[in-house]
């Protein structure tokens, strides 16, 4: 890339005063707790269940940029150099509860009946770009399997 040497005919005078910079601190935290159980109650009947809870968040600490000089504020009067609200734009905070459970019942040596349910609930306490992502779903399942 070559560099020209004639002033810009638009007569816009760029103002270039360096860089404003700082360190940022970003953290993600996710707790996961779970419990599962399997019980063979009788030769025909067995139960299964599991539940889990996930607490996750991602956050940027408040950004503290250095104070700019009056030289900068007078040269760039229509600009704002504080970023103290920036950390609120992209935070995430989720809680996810999952539960599933059910039972198998052997109707005969070759036939097993299964009934199960599954529930998942997500609560989002921070909105990012997708709006409120909170929601839940549940699934009820039943079926018979036959060996032959």
């Amino acid at each position: 890339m070559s560099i020209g040497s004639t002033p810009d005919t638009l007569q816009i005078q760029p103002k270039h005063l360096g860089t404003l910079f700082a360190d940022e601190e970003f953290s993600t935290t996710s707790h996961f707790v779970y419990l599962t159980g399997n019980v063979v109650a009788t030769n025909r009947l067995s139960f299964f269940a599991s539940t889990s809870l996930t607490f996750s968040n991602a956050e940027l600490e408040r950004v503290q940029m250095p104070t700019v000089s009056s030289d900068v504020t007078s040269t760039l009067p229509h600009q704002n150099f504080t970023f103290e609200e920036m950390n609120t734009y992209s935070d995430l905070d989720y809680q996810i509860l999952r539960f599933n459970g059910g039972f198998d019942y052997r109707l005969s040596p070759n036939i097993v009946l299964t009934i199960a349910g599954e529930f998942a609930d997500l609560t989002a306490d921070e909105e990012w770009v997708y709006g409120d992502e909170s929601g839940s779903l549940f699934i009820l399942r039943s079926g018979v399997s036959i060996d032959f």
Partner: protein
Amino acid sequence: MRRYVCAVVAVGLLLGITASTGQAEPLFNQWTLSAGGHYTGLNDYTRKVGEYNLGLEEGMGEFGLAYLLATDRGLLVDIDGNFYDRRNILGHAKYRRGTTMAIDVDFRSMTFREGQDLLTNIEAREEINGNPGGKMMGHEVLDPGADYNTHRREVLTRIKHAITRSGDIRFLAQHRSLWREGTTQMTSTSHCITCHVESETCTRDEQSHQIEGGFEADVSEMMTVGAEVGYRRYESKSNAINREYDIAGFPPAANPGRDVEFPSRLLFSDTVLPVFVLPETEKLSGKVNVRGRFSQATSLSASLGYNTTENINQDLTASSWFGHANLATRLSRKTRLIARFTGRRVENDDPFIDIRTFREGRPGPQPSFDFTRYSTLDRRDGRGEVEVIHRLSREATIDVTGGVRVLDWSSFPDTLEGGTATTVFGEGKLRYRPSRRFTGSIRYRAAATDEPFTTSRGILEPRLKETLVRNFEDGETVHRFLYYYEREQFRTVGATTEPTLAQEVELSASIRPSPRLNLTLSLLAEFDVNNDIDTFDVERTSLRPHLNVNFLPTERVAFSGGWTLNQMTSQGPIAVALFDG
């Protein structure tokens, strides 16, 4: 008489062989048919919590079919399929015929849903002395409430067939096809009348097909060699989204009557162009490998391969040589040594990008922005490590590893000084298992990297007086304005969070006070810093403690529970230029 005796012997042999081989009674010959249904209920927003669910509130049938046939002569047919809903189907088929033939076929189908980015944050107007100024930023979602989802299907087939009677030469073949169909959100931005971001639904229709073929040969009882070649083709048949780009006009409040200036600074404006166009690619690969033992105590595996990937739309090709060698040997009854080496060389085409004339037809400077795109993929990468494992006693083992990795980007001229990242690493681990009731270990790893990966463009713009700029090409000092498009070349301080020193500590213990109770505790901690960048504190800390309990109070009851924490804190740079113009 002779003929009579021979005939009797022959018949006897035939009877004997037939009797001894017999008819293969199947060990398994079982069908399993399952039928049922499920009902899904949804509440509020479910594209996140149910991102792998169809997202339809309805009842649906489910079906499953399995078949297992097996004899003691190595005949195995194992088929298992499940239909959950029309987009969630799994199937697996396995066929074995002794040591002669093995065939596996897998099919899976799944769905993936995405949320819609509402773009509500993209709306702004500049303020100048209390009045609306020239700079503007806006958005438009052309398909509000769209439900983006992708249906992904995959079929994978693997075949191994022995060519020789003894089975020591085997033909290998593999086929894999991937299809992704559906819709996704496409956002595109039109710059410089305002920054105007538009979102619309883009159909997705992509497929990838891959075939591989090769052979393996047992050249001796302890050595096997093999070779394979492969071909993969990817293409996207998605309908291109055509984006209408506004006529570029300089903000009228700043420069009235200067509308014609800005189009001359852009590659395109006041036109319709496709966005989200994915190129067709082809990949060819070949590899030879050898593995085996020199003795009971020494094992070797090695491979050497070559592949090329071509972007057919743009006629760009990246090619790569790669290889590895692993050697394991027993130095004594209590000491093992393992050496591992990998190497790779990648070369990518460097296209010349011919850019339209800047400010064509306008008075004033018209610098050329043509450039050659040197690729960051070009590299030579080699890594070697030696691991020594020594049994201190029946209960304790110590494991020490040391190695070096050299990554050379020197064919990419615009990057780091020197263009080489050298990593020296070491790891030590002590494992203690006095009995089946307790196992504990502690591990420490450190890796020091000289000049880790950094973007080739700096992050800080030094203060440059608007009337004084050094011409870097010939060292002359000239007086002129600094153009906005020249800022990038003056930036300094390459930024990254890749560490110059990465340390890892892992502690774990498994305690089994009784056959029915097992506790596991572990902690994995990582501490990364980058000391090259003095301007910023670049650190990353990760902590992952874990606790798990398995409890079997009776043979019929089993419980398992636990807690895991994933905690990561990262410090890094954040910068903005003090600039206007």
